[in-house]
Structures are given as C-alpha cells and as structure tokens.
C-alpha cells in the first residue's frame, strides 16, 4: 500500500528516538513543544497502523501479539494526549516562573526517550531487552521528577531513584534466573530470552527455578507497579514532579511494569510444575488496596491523594490476576486500560486546577464547580469514573471482579468490597470538599486545553456501555492464557 516497506513496529521505536535526538538539540520551548506533540502524533499513527497492517511475525527482538497490541496503542495515545496537555501546562509554568527554559532544555528529549523506553518494553520479544527498556523509562522519569529542583522534588527523585533501582536490580536477577531455567530446554544465547520460544517450550522449563525467578520478578517489577511494601516512591514522585509526568507515571509506567509481570505470569501459567503465584499476588493486591484506601483519608496534597488512588487500583488489578480464571483476568486487563485513561484524565484536570488555584493543598481548593465549571465538572466526572461508578468503564471491570470473587472466595470478596468502600469514602469526602461549597482562591478563568480530558472521559464512557468486539476477543484470548 505504500512504497517503502512500512513496518509499524520499527516506526513506533524509531520516531521517538529520532525526535529525542532532534529535540535535544533545539533550544526554545515553544518550537520543541509543538515538535513533541507532532512526534507523539506520528508514533500514535504508526501504532494505530498495527491494527490495520497484518501483524509482523515475531523475530528475535520484537513481537506483536494479543496482549501488547492494545497496550502499545493505549501507550502512544495517552503519550500523545499528555504531550498536548504538557504543552499548555509547561507554558503556564514558564509564565509563572516556576520553571525556567534552562532546566527545560532536555524536558522534551527526556519525554521522547521515555516514550521510546515504554514502547520498546511493550514490543520487545527479549526479556533482557524489556528489562533495559523499563530501566531507561525509569531513569528518564527520575530526571523529570526532580525538574523543579525544590527540596521536596529532589528528595522525591532521590527516593524514586534508589527504590526504583533496587527494584530493577531484583528484576534483573529474576530475568537471569529465567534465562538459567530456559537454558537446558531452549538452548543458549538469544533464544533462551525470547518470549515466543520460552512460551513454546514452557513445558520443558525447570519449574523450581521459574518459581524463584517469579518471586524476584514480582518484587522487582512490583516496585515499579507500586505494590504496597515497595510503593514508597510513588506518592512523592507524583506529587513533586510536574503534572504531565504524574499523568505518564500513573497512566503508563505502572502499566508497563504490570505488563512485564503479566508476561512472566503467562510463562508461569504455561509451566506445569510451577506453584500458583495467585496467593502471593492476591495478598500483595489486597494489602495495597486496603493500605492505600486508609492512607487516602489523611492526605493534604491533591496529587498525592490521586497517587494513593493509583496504588489502590494497581492493588485491585494485581488481585484480579492473582485470583485467575478467564473472567477475573478479563476484568484485570480491562481495569488496566480504564485506569490509565481515567487517571491520566484526572491528572490533566488536577494539573490545571493546581495552576489556577496556585496550590496543591486540598484545604485551599473549594467550590470548583462554581469558580471553574468545566474543570470542576471534569474532576467530578473523573472521580466518579475512577471509583468505578457506572456508566463508566471501571464499573464493568469491578462488576466482573467482585461477582466472580464472591462466587469463588467469599471472604476475599468481602475484604475487597470493604477496601473499595473505604477508598470511595475518602475520595468522595475530598471531592465534595473541592468541587462544591463556596469557591475559594482565585477565580481567574483557566487557559487550559480540555481536549485531552474530554477525549479520555469519552472513551471511558463509551467503554462502559459498549466494548468493541475485537478488543473483547483479544482480551478473552489473553485471559484464558493467563491461567
């Protein structure tokens, strides 16, 4: 259909790489912002091409299958909308002087490198390459979290770096163990690290080594997912970094790490002798859900509030995959997509709210639906969507998850519902405080780009009522594989 053999997989990787190179050289914020949006748009289009073009055969380094095709498109779409939001957000930050063009010099380059890392992580067929991609994404986000150079930002970045790197190191050790387990069956070199071959020979893998490897991988990538004992970096990284980065962190990076855990769970499900990781994942999931739910009550900073809400939702998703069964897995996958769309939409409006009100303190933000109707109501709709109320998409995933859990493990379902209710109480309490009542602070109209937020919420609303059959088939196929 086109002259040059257009391979979307390569395009999705090359475009951010080239863009990063170009953006690193260009000074001046206005031009780089537009270029950044353009690059993200091109990446999105090439990712969308994956739907149209026949799927390329998996080679040594890249693979496109039912699991990652949806997440690549989601990743590039949210990256594109975040770039739009970041353009207007950073422009405002420059005006108010919180950021200078000096320390913004590498911002867009870092942004594109992060995109490269994430896309590579999704596309890579090689577990080692995936590890490197996640490491690259982590390092770039560490730099961006510390961009404001305030005391808190540096402390948050340093904490994020140390905890992230330890986590990633554990993940590397897990990857090496998987390689060791695969070596006798699949042979040495690249083959022992490529997913497709590992899956094909899964029956021959050494089960005991795979179990040990999964523990390291779950702890390693779990740190990047933000599961409770390893979550400490997440709230501060969200609160102190610029809001586009919080949106990317919550929306995409958590998904990337979770995708990695899913890949290895696929492997584990295929290995007969391996012990079921369900119990461990369910405990970590419930622990995160309950811990985050209770921590929501004492939060005083709006972005830290939604960071803990991300931990809570990651807990729900990991619990869903831990429970297993086609319905719960389907619910988990759906929840991942819905959470990233809704949470990034919430962070877009939170970003604008923090700018307009000049503060991130919950106590100083009141009466949004009166002072800034559009921002206020998008926040209300966002929070209603995130707590899993119909007619938004999260309701379907929570419906499936809670009903199957109650049918199979009633006590766990009661715990799950208790966690959800406690979290809902906290979010609703803060939302009522922020969105309603007498407005406080400045009432200057917000010069904000609402397009990304509306796009996300519209998608979530549609998904709540009608899911495209293609997506359903893919997810059901993966859900049955996940075991």
């Amino acid at each position: 259909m086109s002259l040059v053999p257009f391979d979307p997989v390569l395009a999705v990787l090359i475009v951010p790489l080239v863009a990063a190179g170009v953006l690193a050289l260009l000074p001046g914020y206005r031009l780089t912002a537009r270029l950044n949006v353009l690059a993200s748009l091109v990446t999105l289009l090439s990712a969308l091409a994956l739907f149209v073009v026949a799927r390329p055969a998996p080679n040594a380094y890249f693979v496109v299958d039912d699991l990652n095709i949806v997440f690549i498109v989601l990743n590039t779409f949210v990256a594109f909308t975040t770039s739009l939001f970041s353009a207007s957000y950073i422009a405002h930050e420059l005006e108010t002087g919180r950021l200078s063009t000096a320390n913004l010099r590498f911002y867009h380059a870092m942004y594109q490198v992060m995109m490269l890392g994430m896309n590579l992580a999704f596309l890579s067929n090689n577990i080692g390459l995936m590890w490197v991609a996640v490491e690259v994404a982590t390092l770039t986000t560490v730099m961006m979290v510390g961009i404001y150079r305030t005391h808190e930002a540096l402390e948050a970045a340093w904490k994020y770096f140390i905890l992230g790197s330890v986590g990633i190191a554990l993940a590397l050790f897990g990857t090496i163990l998987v390689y060791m387990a695969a070596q006798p069956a699949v042979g040495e070199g690249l083959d022992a690290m490529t997913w497709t071959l590992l899956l094909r020979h899964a029956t021959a893998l050494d089960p005991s080594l795979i179990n040990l490897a999964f523990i390291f991988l779950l702890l390693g990538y779990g740190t990047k997912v933000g599961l409770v004992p390893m979550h400490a970096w997440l709230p501060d990284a969200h609160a102190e970094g610029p809001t586009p980065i919080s949106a990317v962190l919550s929306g995409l990076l958590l998904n990337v790490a979770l995708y990695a855990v899913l890949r290895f769970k696929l492997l584990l499900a295929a290995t007969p002798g391996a012990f079921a990781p369900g119990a461990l994942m369910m405990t970590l999931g419930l622990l995160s859900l309950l811990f985050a739910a209770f921590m929501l009550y004492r939060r005083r900073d709006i972005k830290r509030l939604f960071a803990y809400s991300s931990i809570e939702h990651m807990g729900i998703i990991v619990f869903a995959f831990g429970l297993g069964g086609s319905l719960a897995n389907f619910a988990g996958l759906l929840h991942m997509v819905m959470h990233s769309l809704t949470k990034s939409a919430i962070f877009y409006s939170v970003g604008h709210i923090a700018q307009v009100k000049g503060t991130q303190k919950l106590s100083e933000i009141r009466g949004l639906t009166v002072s800034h109707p559009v921002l206020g109501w998008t926040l209300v709709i966002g929070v209603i969507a995130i707590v899993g109320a119909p007619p938004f998409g999260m309701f379907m995933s929570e419906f499936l998850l809670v009903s199957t859990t109650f049918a199979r493990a009633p006590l766990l379902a009661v715990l799950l519902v208790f966690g959800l209710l406690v979290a809902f109480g906290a979010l609703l309490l803060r939302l009522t405080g922020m969105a309603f009542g007498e407005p406080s602070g400045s009432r200057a109209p917000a010069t904000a780009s609402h397009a990304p937020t509306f796009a996300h919420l519209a998608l979530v609303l549609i998904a709540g009522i009608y899911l495209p059959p293609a997506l359903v088939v893919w997810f059901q196929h993966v859900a049955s594989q996940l075991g």
Partner: protein
Amino acid sequence: MDGLALDIAHLFAGGLVLVSFMLLYQDRLSALINVYALHATVLALSVAWQAYIQGAPELYVTAGIAIVFKVVVIPVALHRIIRQLGIHREVETAVGMGLTMLAGIGLVALSLAVMLQFTPGANPLAREDLAFALAVLLLGLLMMVTRRNAVSQVVGFMSLENGLVLAATGAKGMPLVVEISVTFSIIIAFIVIGIFLFRIRERFDTVDVQALDDFRGDRR
C-alpha cells in the same frame, strides 16, 4: 582441567563475597571507595576467567568494561565528588557493626540454601555463581539499608550491581547485547547519581541522608 577451572572460578566468586563483607566493615568513605575498586577488580577477574573457561570471547568485553569503568572511572569520580563537596568523611551506620556482620552471614547462608536447592539441574559452575551472586546482591542491599549517608548507599548499590554482572556471566551463553546494555545502563545510573549528588549538595549543602529526610513531602 575441569576440576581446577571450577576451583579457580569458585575462588573468584568466593573472593567477591569476602570483599562485600569488607565493604560492610569500612567506617571511612575513602577506604570504602578503595574497597569498592577492589570489589570491581575481583569481579573483572572472575568474568575474564569465565570467558576463558566458556571460550566466549565477548565476556572479555564485559571484563574490559568492568575494569575501565568500575575499577578506574567510578572510584576516581567518587573520590573527586567527596573532595569537592567536602563531605564529612565518616560513615554513619544505623545498625551496630556486629549486628550487620551477623545479618550478612545469615544472608549468605540463606542465598546458598535457596540457590543450591533450586538449581539441581544446572551445571555446577552456574549454580555456584548464582548462589554467590545472590549473596553479593543481598549484602549490597544490607549495606544500603544500614548506612546513613548517600555516598555509602551509592557504593552499596554499585556493589549490588556487581553481583548482578557476576550472575549474568555465570549464566553460560548470555547474549552479548544484553550484557553490554546491562552494564551500559548501570553506567548511566551512576551518571544520574553523580548529577543528583551535585544537585543535592547544591541545595542541601550536605549529602547526609538525614538532612534529605527532613524534606519528605506532605509532612505531618
């Protein structure tokens, strides 16, 4: 030949664990960095020896990178950072030295028990390397957990990374591109650490993690 080669590899790996213990024992920063350089050299030797035994020429590249960066560049950079930032010299520990040593021994025993139990199938060389790598990894973590100042945490982290490189070389036939990119990313990590240490120094005028902790977000 096989027995002797195994013993020498065993010697190097054991030596790495011993140097990790020495790292735990240091109480002055400059001495700590020198012991880290020693740690890196033992790693390089072990990798070189693995290359010789497995007849895998690309491992020499990893050994070379290890020597160039980890034995020379990183310790020198750390020394300059200490001198330039005027960081006070002692290493404050959060947990008593005796207790840390005991914990270290326990960790080594645990890693040996776990790895040897889990890898009956693999060849003896790989099993040993993995066991010792896990030990070095856990000791690195122990060091990060029990030290107060930032530089000693960084050294702990780098020794942890060395354990990983040992594990990677132990796994016969680990593809070169992964080796290279793993070591490469560790180097980038170190660059980021350097930048941060300067920024922290510029803002906090001390690199003591204690001062850093006072600025935890959303304080009570």
